[in-house]
């Protein structure tokens, strides 16, 4: 195999395109979740798709295709048990083990046995992610015979998405805060720029180390389809240029959200909006409360260059328990909050979000009126990429977002996502003198499906498509 030219040492032509960009120009998308019906036919399909998959080294021309696998999917395709076992234990065990569900808050009504997909009733092997410039182009892409899944694959679920113009279903501008990645995105200050290896296997991460990934002996890769281990062992690197993809379908109870806030605001519209902003940490238009505590500000809609410690340490602007503050605490946590040391730790727990909304938009006013019959669900297909599921996604979800004890709080779980225990339903809004508390905050988000996927490098796709010997 000829050596490939790499820029900055990053082999972007071998990394699937979803890492480099969320395809914002391709506003139509659909996600096909499937199981392997016939392994040989599925491998033939994969060999075709590997040639069509979008890579990270250039912008897509009107359409994008990416494909990812669960650990059962890799096994069903014929990957050896020894190779599968070298993936991370979170991926191998899957999102739905009892221990994992406790960490993620998937308990009670959100437990996997109630899910539409990904749970024991409807396991998933493969996710095929399709993106196009508009709905017509998407329909054409979906119908493209080159992508035909049968007979190798059987579709379990087809998840459509909507273009809510950069907003999520509660009505807030979304996707403002994404990590800056060395060699990939525009560069920022050292303290907020992350190593490539935090999001792609086979490169140094924020500890300066290489995340464990499957390394195979020569006999397992006689045709040398896979890149070799960059650490010099000479082994075939199945994980290189791949990453883990976390997918969770989150249904959002938009009516419940606005009804609760309307009641807490005693039906005053601007107070209702202010309370909503307190829960989220940004105004619906995007301005962060920390920079603009009293009202929305269009000029700050994309503002992301701020910390909490200097100027909002006590949470009087952006509450300590607000969603964006706990999903990304920036410089506000120990040790030595407000200093680069705090950012150093923060950098080790970031995720790269690539989700898409689904369902129709519902304004707060409409949300307060009676629902139409047969109203469809709406919500977020939450998708994120990270090299270390346990230290990144699960840490953010379990230790920061879901925890009623985040940053020395007592009983405050994330107010958007909601408590997963019988306790945690308080939301405290710190104030200059006396704090205000909302109690018994209901859950506005429920989990309808999910799985941990591996998003392989393109050479790895070809390797997976080759028959096992």
């Amino acid at each position, binding site marked *: 195999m000829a050596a490939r030219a790499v820029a900055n040492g990053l082999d972007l032509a071998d990394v699937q395109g979803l890492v480099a960009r969320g395809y914002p120009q391709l506003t139509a998308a659909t996600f096909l979740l499937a199981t392997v019906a016939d392994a040989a036919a599925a491998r033939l399909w994969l060999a075709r798709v590997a040639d069509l998959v979008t890579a990270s080294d250039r912008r897509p021309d009107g359409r994008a295709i990416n494909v990812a696998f669960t650990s059962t999917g890799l096994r069903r395709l014929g990957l050896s048990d020894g190779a599968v076992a070298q993936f991370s234990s979170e991926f191998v065990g899957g999102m739905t083990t009892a221990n994992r569900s406790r960490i993620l808050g998937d308990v009670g009504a959100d437990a996997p046995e109630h899910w539409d997909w990904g749970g024991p009733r409807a396991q998933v092997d493969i996710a095929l992610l399709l993106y196009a410039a508009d709905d017509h182009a998407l329909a054409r892409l979906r119908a493209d015979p080159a992508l035909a899944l049968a007979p190798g694959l059987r579709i379990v679920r087809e998840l459509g998405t909507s273009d809510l113009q950069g907003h999520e279903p509660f009505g807030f501008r979304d996707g403002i805060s994404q990590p800056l990645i060395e060699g990939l995105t525009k560069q920022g200050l050292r303290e907020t720029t992350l190593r490539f290896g935090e999001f792609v296997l086979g490169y140094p991460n924020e*500890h300066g180390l290489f*995340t464990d990934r499957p390394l195979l002996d020569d006999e397992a890769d006689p045709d040398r389809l896979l890149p070799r281990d960059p650490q010099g062992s000479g082994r075939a690197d199945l994980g290189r240029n791949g990453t883990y993809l976390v997918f969770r379908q989150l249904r959002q109870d938009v009516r419940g959200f606005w009804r609760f806030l309307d009641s807490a605001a005693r039906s005053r519209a601007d107070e209702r909006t202010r309370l909503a902003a307190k829960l989220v940490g940004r105004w619906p238009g995007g301005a962060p409360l920390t920079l603009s505590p009293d009202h929305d500000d269009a000029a700050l809609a994309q503002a992301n260059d701020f910390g909490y410690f200097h100027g909002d340490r006590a949470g009087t602007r952006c509450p300590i328990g607000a969603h964006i503050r706990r999903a990304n605490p920036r410089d506000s946590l120990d040790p030595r909050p407000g200093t680069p040391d705090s950012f150093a730790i923060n950098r080790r727990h970031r995720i790269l979000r690539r989700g898409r909304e689904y369902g129709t938009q519902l304004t707060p006013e409409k949300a307060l009126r009676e629902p139409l019959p047969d109203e469809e669900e709406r919500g977020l297909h939450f998708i994120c990429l990270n090299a270390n599921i346990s230290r990144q996604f699960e840490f953010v979800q379990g230790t920061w977002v879901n*925890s009623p004890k985040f940053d020395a709080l007592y009983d405050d779980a994330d107010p958007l996502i909601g408590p997963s225990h019988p306790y945690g339903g308080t939301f405290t809004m710190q104030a200059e003198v006396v704090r205000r508390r909302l109690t018994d905050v209901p859950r506005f988000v429920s989990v309808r499906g999910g799985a941990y996927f591996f998003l392989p490098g393109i050479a790895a796709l070809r390797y997976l498509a080759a028959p096992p010997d």
Partner: protein
Amino acid sequence: MPSQSALTIAAEVRPEATEDLRRLLASMGDGVANGSVIDLGAPEAVHFARLVLVDAATDLRGAPLPAWLVYMADVDVPKQQHLVELVDEAGDGIDRLFGHCVNYPSAPATPEQRADYLRACVVKEQARYVNWVGRGERQIRDEARLRERIEAYLDEHADELDGRDAGEVARELRRFVETDESLAWARRPAEGLPVGFRLRELVHAVAIPLLVLLLLPLILLGLPIFVVLLRVHERRDPAPHVKPPPELTERLAALEDHVVLNPFTAIGLVKTGLFRRLTLSTVLFAIDYVTRHVFNRGDLAGVKTIHFARWAFLDGKRRMIFASNYDGSLESYMDDFIDKIAWGLNIVFSNGYGFPRARFLILDGARDELAFKDYLRLHQVPTHVWHSAYGRLTALNITNNARIRAGLQRDAGEADTVEWLRAL
């Protein structure tokens, strides 16, 4: 209020009785004790208590090491008093548990026999950590209750208090506490440590550095030799990165995250040789000194989530047991340590067999993130039976509650009052 004591009891388990004991312990809890067989919370002033089974093993020279039944408790009464109370409260529960152990008197034993047996099994800890020396379990529970009452008051009177300044609100709260008899204790500051205890601690705090100062010439002479020997050992010691089997991790994780706090128990072989044993003993002595006199107010060199911890030797210093009680998940606990005090982990655990390779006792080691996390899981002991007196209080919550109570006492200036109200 005396300072917190630790009691560690280790009884050798008869080989043929080990599996039965394992089943018994598994029936007594799922990570949180269910109160069967014995009620770990029954004795007075127990912060935390646990029972674990340390498995039999082989030492690094091939000699067999027995299994141990280990009881550990953090309490506010002197350890011998706690032992007697445990025997009183547990009754024949002691027989059911320790009957699996070597030389246990035949059942049913008399209370004196039980107490004598346990006393003979007491192990002295090499080092301990207490989050806040002198803060008793009763104080913790009382102050939690105080906070709840004040928070309810603030919620109920939210509208009236809206717009009032900090001084007025503070006066309202003090008035509220004063008019409630059940909160009378809160008007006084928390009991301090007894004078005798403080004097003894002061003597210890001064005497040890003095001793070190006296021995300084010897220490300085010996230091280069130590460093050379250390590097020889560090380069020679095997440090294989072994991944724990997934079933092991799943079994351990099943016992975790049922409440806000978790216990952590681990056992490891001490590297062979006098050099390592001496180094470890010295390091533990130093740790005990700094946790007694420096890190005794809520902060262990940057980590604020640990309630109690202890280190003790077993098997004539061939194995060491470590136990702690901490807030949050194990992943966050491990990340906390790697991020904040990897050097602290290294100085102790790099003397343990299999720890990721360290340099100069403090470098590398735990900074190899995945190797360290795998090492911990491989050496972790399942803690089925664990009692916590705190319910849902983290260390930061507890310290904050103490701050709330303390703020009731004085009528401070404007800035301090605002700061005090922020705790609510």
